[in-house]
Every structure is written in structure tokens, then in C-alpha cells.
């Protein structure tokens, strides 16, 4: 059963070491010098490939002292065959804003994980964490100690606030309408307790995108999506527009006709934007980055309630506050979160995301509870059914009698 080198053959997985795309199998294989877990991981994975079936048991609760999240417990269901992955927990480590690192910081992380785990990672997990993939229960605390000493901390899991994440924003993008990096960092710091000790009915995710392109997919994946936008006119450089046209851009077809509100017109010489009609979709700016830029009065739209389909169907975030000036974002979000969480804690069912709660109790009741006025920007259209829970009424004659 073993190869010459003493390792199990993995003919199926070997197939995945071919081809131009970097191979995760190669990554695992080359890490077997770090930990014997890697060989057993490959072995168990080969078994899964043979049997078309996973071999992990339903997670168990493990973690580090005083934290209610950040570690996903995992046990093999074939530990006799693969004793080195009998335990194979992951640690979620909160990434720095924008996933920026120095080579030294990365080496520090690698060293810690080489000492205390499989040497395998995900850079990064879907939520944004650095994922340290696979270790044993008794390595958790030592790994945690070294991590915190190196300035890193755990991310969220379970009914915690999850690790906020953000796009690269002002660090490298001309379209960032607020400082995504700072907001993400500062919110994370402000919510250390919520991140580490499950306070909610279920998970709560925050993602910060600098503009409506939403490079961090906030609208699809965050209970609170912060998406940059602007209030004034698009900044327009006519000379640069002409240059694009001179260089072959079909501005009529590719820009004006694709503008969702048809608020742009090109008369052969000049581009005119009726900014009052612009819905800040970014398309024209995306096509002509040298000529157009978001306006100068910048901030963000706050949206609420995105999530994956389990269990009432997927939700996209929907508009909660159309515009918050950049400078007020941190404060506004903290205040809003406070009210949202209060209402959710009191009214949310177990494992009910905030978006689901809103669906259940109704947006208007939710707004009441968090003290926001209903505005038409919150809906694509007003209701089309006549089933209105009227509140204000006249005393009826009979009652007065």
C-alpha cells in the first residue's frame, strides 16, 4: 500500500498536480516536511476522491481560553487509517485591513504555524481570515500565545461578529469614496468583544467596499455592507475624454448607451452628464478612469441583511442609509449596530440572521426599532398588495359611545 518513499500512493490526486494552474495537492505534498499531518491529509483526501465522500466528522467545540470563536474543530472519521489528522482543527486569524503584509510578518506567521500546525493555510478564507489549516487540540493555546505576541489575534466563528473585511480602497484605488482600510480596522478594534465572545443569535458580518464596484462582494455576503459613493457631480476631465475617443473608444455605444439611466450624452465633441439622474453605478468611470472620477462629496451607503441561502433563501443587502459622509461613518455605524444588535438580540430566533429577522418582522417595524425614518430609497418600489397594517385610526363612533 505504501510507495517506495514510505508514503501512500495517491494516483487520483497526482492527476491534480498537472496543468498550468498552481496545485493545492503540490502545496500539501511539499509541506509534509513540516508535519506528518500533510501526508495523512493527502491520504484521507485520496480516499475521499476514491469514494466520492468526505471523511470529516461533524465539528466539535474546541477553542482557546476565554474565546467563544475563531477555531473550527475537526476530526477524521477514519482516524485509524490517518491518525495524524485524527484532530485537524483550523484557526481563523484576523487579517490586517486589505490583506497587506510585509515579508517579515508573513514569515512570522509561517514560523508559528510550522511550530504548531500542519504548515498549511488558506490565504485567505472566504470571510477574509488567514486560515491556519489543521492542528491538534493541544496546539491551539500555544499557537494563540505566539500569535498574540506577534500582534495577531483570532477571527470570528459561531454566533460572533465575524472578521470584517475591506477592499484595498485608498491604499491603491482612485475610486475609494472613504477610507475602507481604516474603517475596517477601527471597527474590528472596537468590536473585539463581539468578535471573540458570541453575543448574537447568529453570525454578523461587516464588509467595506470603497465604491459601488464592491470589490469585496459586500452586497452579497455582509449583514452590514458599507459601500462607498458620492453625492455631488462626477469629476470630469474633458481633455481626457477626447483622448479616449481619439484612441478608439466608441463612447456613444460603450458608455452612453450602457449608462443605466441614459443620463449621458455625447455630441461628437463633448460628453454631458446629467448628474441629477446619475445613480452612481460606476460604469462610465470604470471605462474611462483617466477622464472621470467619483465626486468630491464622498461617503458610503449602508446596506443591511445579505446572506447565503440557508435557510429561507439567499438575500442581498438592501439600502438602510443612502448616504453617510465619510467622516461620520465610524460613529454612525457604531450607533446603528448598537441599535440593530439590541433589536436582534431581543427578537431574533436562534440562528436567525438579521436579514431574515427583517423579512420576518417587516422592514417598517425594524426601522421603528432602530429609529430610522422610512424613505423611498429603501425600496425598488412601494408595496403592490393592499395588506396594510394601519396603525393610526380614528376613534370609531361605536367606541366613543
Amino acid at each position: 500500500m505504501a510507495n517506495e518513499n514510505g508514503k501512500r500512493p495517491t494516483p487520483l490526486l497526482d492527476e491534480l498536480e498537472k496543468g498550468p494552474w498552481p496545485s493545492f495537492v503540490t502545496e500539501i505534498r511539499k509541506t509534509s516536511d513540516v508535519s506528518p499531518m500533510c501526508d495523512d491529509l493527502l491520504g484521507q483526501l485520496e480516499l475521499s476522491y476514491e469514494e466520492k465522500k468526505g471523511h470529516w466528522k461533524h465539528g466539535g467545540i474546541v477553542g482557546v481560553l476565554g474565546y467563544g470563536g475563531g477555531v473550527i474543530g475537526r476530526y477524521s472519521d477514519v482516524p485509524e487509517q490517518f491518525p495524524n489528522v485524527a484532530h485537524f482543527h483550523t484557526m481563523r486569524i484576523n487579517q490586517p485591513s486589505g490583506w497587506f503584509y510585509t515579508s517579515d510578518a508573513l514569515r512570522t506567521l509561517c514560523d508559528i504555524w510550522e511550530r504548531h500546525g500542519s504548515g498549511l493555510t488558506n490565504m485567505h478564507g472566504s470571510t477574509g481570515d488567514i486560515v491556519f489549516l489543521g492542528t491538534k487540540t493541544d496546539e491551539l493555546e500555544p499557537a494563540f500565545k505566539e500569535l498574540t505576541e506577534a500582534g495577531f489575534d483570532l477571527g470570528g466563528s459561531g454566533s460572533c461578529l465575524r472578521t470584517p473585511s475591506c477592499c484595498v480602497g485608498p491604499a491603491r484605488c482612485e475610486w475609494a469614496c472613504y477610507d475602507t482600510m481604516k474603517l475596517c480596522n477601527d471597527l474590528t478594534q472596537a468590536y473585539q468583544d463581539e468578535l471573540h465572545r458570541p453575543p448574537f443569535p447568529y453570525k454578523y458580518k461587516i464588509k467595506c467596499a470603497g465604491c459601488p464596484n464592491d470589490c469585496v462582494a459586500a452586497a452579497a455576503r455582509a449583514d452590514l455592507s458599507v459601500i462607498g459613493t458620492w453625492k455631488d457631480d462626477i469629476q470630469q476631465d474633458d481633455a481626457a475624454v477626447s483622448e479616449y475617443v481619439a484612441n478608439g473608444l466608441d463612447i456613444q455605444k460603450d458608455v452612453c448607451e450602457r449608462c443605466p439611466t441614459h443620463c449621458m450624452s455625447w455630441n461628437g465633441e463633448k460628453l454631458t452628464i446629467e448628474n441629477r439622474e446619475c445613480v452612481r453605478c460606476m460604469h462610465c468611470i470604470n471605462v474611462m478612469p483617466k477622464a472621470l472620477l467619483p465626486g468630491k462629496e464622498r461617503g458610503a451607503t449602508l446596506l443591511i441583511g445579505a446572506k447565503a441561502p440557508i435557510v429561507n433563501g439567499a438575500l442581498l443587502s438592501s439600502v438602510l442609509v443612502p448616504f453617510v459622509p465619510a467622516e461620520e461613518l465610524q460613529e454612525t455605524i457604531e450607533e446603528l449596530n448598537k441599535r440593530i444588535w439590541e433589536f436582534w438580540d431581543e427578537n431574533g430566533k436562534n440562528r436567525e440572521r438579521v436579514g431574515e429577522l427583517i423579512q420576518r418582522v417587516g422592514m417598517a417595524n425594524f426601522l421603528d426599532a432602530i429609529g430610522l425614518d422610512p424613505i423611498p430609497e429603501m425600496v425598488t418600489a412601494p408595496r403592490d398588495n393592499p395588506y396594510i397594517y394601519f396603525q393610526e385610526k380614528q376613534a370609531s363612533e361605536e367606541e366613543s359611545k
Partner: protein
Amino acid sequence: MTPTATPKAKRITDIGPPNYEKFLPPVIKRNYGQWKFHETLAPGVLCHVSVTGEKLYTVRAASPRLLSVHSIRLFADLADKYCGGFLRFTSRNNVEFLLSEFANIEPLKQDLLKAGYPVGGTNNSISNIVHTQGWVHCHSSATDASGLVKSMMDALFPYFSEEKLPAKLRLAVACCLNMCGAVHCSDIAVLGVHRKPPKIRHDVLPKICEVPTLIASCPTGAIRPATVSGKPSVEVIEEQCMYCGNCYTVCPAMPLNDPENDGISIWVGGKVSNARTAPKFTKLAIPFLPNNPPRWPEVVEAVVNIVDKYASHAKKYERMGEWIERIGWPRFFEMTGIPFTRYHIDDFKNAGLTFARSTHIRF
């Protein structure tokens, strides 16, 4: 504890992540929030220009996401060699080197290519596939994620290394209906599905699960209380089960795995950006393809087919979903040769709103 015991070093907690500012290269620090525009120098190579005139070059390389410490160290070494040790990862798990020197771009690309991490994924290309754990780490998975990604990206590689699509094309893989990632809003999504109701492990169920919670977890009310061998357990009304797996999430005694029946579904036309059109959910294209590791040829073929049709028919700046909405779903099914089945017709909560409520029909 005696008062003389050495006080233990205070355990550090709740420090949060390191401040990002420590990790920003000087060129970014100097021009933070001052970027004026960017241009693409080559696939995978961007140049951002600041109002000060300074330039920042980004070289983006592919990553399998599942990275060994060795590879991370390799990236660190390359960063030291070419850009003062500064690098980052993207929201789609690629690695980006942040250069101040134009001259360093080419050698870095060569080194990356040699090491097996090719450069690309910018603009109108297929970037890395957002994906999940699969058989590598999760208990829930109906398929593997990494293997699917590798198989598809090998086949789609020219779309990564060149920018030859009408627009960005975002793929995602999730190994179960929990959809860790953005499967529900991707241009093309590959989703592991179960097709058999949970196999109830009556022996352990009463011990490890709370029956009322379990019953409440089923969105279709398929789970009923039942007494099995004299012990309180549950039964599943098979016709009412649509294999969502929520019961398994709350109760380990309800596994859904079934090698012969687990497999892959393919979804198309979602997006997240607000560019032009509002964000859209992904819609069902192919309800089921077999789990065929290690290379999932049926899945790869189906995805390549959809990508090719899109690549050759969509208009410039048209995302997958925008293209399909323009030509209409009937044409999409006709063009791709994908059969339309009963499974494509929604029967969940808001189904009625997906019925074609006009006579707008192409013949």
C-alpha cells in the same frame, strides 16, 4: 496559591489584527487616498498613478489559496527581492506584489512563472475562483472544492492569462448549500448538492441532538418526531426533503452524504458590482452533474462551454447575467445546448415572481 508565586505574564487577548499601516509600502503611504487613475500594462500588471505623479505597479499572481508555508515564504522572498518586502492578497485570494520600480516587473513575472504562480486575472479575464473547504476540511461537503477549482482553472487558463472576455467573469465553487463564498452572486457558480434525504442515525440521535430544535431546523417541515426502537427520534418525509442540509448542521446524526447521489449543479448570471445593473442572484443552469474526481470532466466541459458561448456572443462590457438577460433565457439554453427541466422552474417561496408574466417571447 502562595503569595510568593511568580506572577504569570498577562495573557494577551483582544488585540485585534495588526494595524495595516505597518504593512503599507512607502509609495502607498505617500500617496494614500491620492490615486488619480490606473492603467493596465499587461494582463496581471496594473499601474496606479497618483496626483503627485508617483506610480505604483501591481503584479498579480495566481494562488491555489491553499498555501504551504513554503510558498508563502517564497512570496515573501520575491517581495523582498523586487518590492521592499511589500505584498498583499486580494479578495479573490490572488497574491499581489506592490512595486515602485517598473524595471522589476518583468523579472518578477518570470520568477513567479518559474515557481508555478502565473500572472493574470485583471480586467476582463477570469480571476481566481472563490471557493471553500470541500473534502480537505469540511464535514458538510457534497464534493471537493479545491479539486474542482484546479480542474476548471487548468481548462480556463487562457482566460486568466489574457484579457479577452467581454467583461469580468467571476467563478465560485461551494461544496454544499451553505455556500461559503459568493456562489449565490457569481457569473458562474459550481455547487455541490446532495440528492438523498438525511440518513438518520437513530442510535446516537437522542443523545447528541435536541429533537425540537432539529424539527424546527427544516424549512419544509419534512422532519417529524418518531419513536424508533422505543427511543424518541425523528423521521424524514422523503418527498418533502430538498436536501438543504440544515438539519445536519444542527444535528450530526443526520448526515446527507451519499456518494452515488452527491454531485454538482451549475449556476450562472449572478453579479455583485453595481456597474450598470444592480447585483443579481445566480440562476440554475444545470441541476446535476456527477461527482467525477479527480478532474470532473463533465463539470469542466459544461463550464468551458458556457464560458465560450459567452465569450463569443456577449457585447463588450456585458457581464454573463447582463448578456443572458439581453438574449433571454430560452436563447441561453438553446445556445449552450443545456436542457431545460422541471428543476429549473422555481418552487420555493417567491416562485410566482419568476413565472413569465408577459407575452414577450422570441420565436
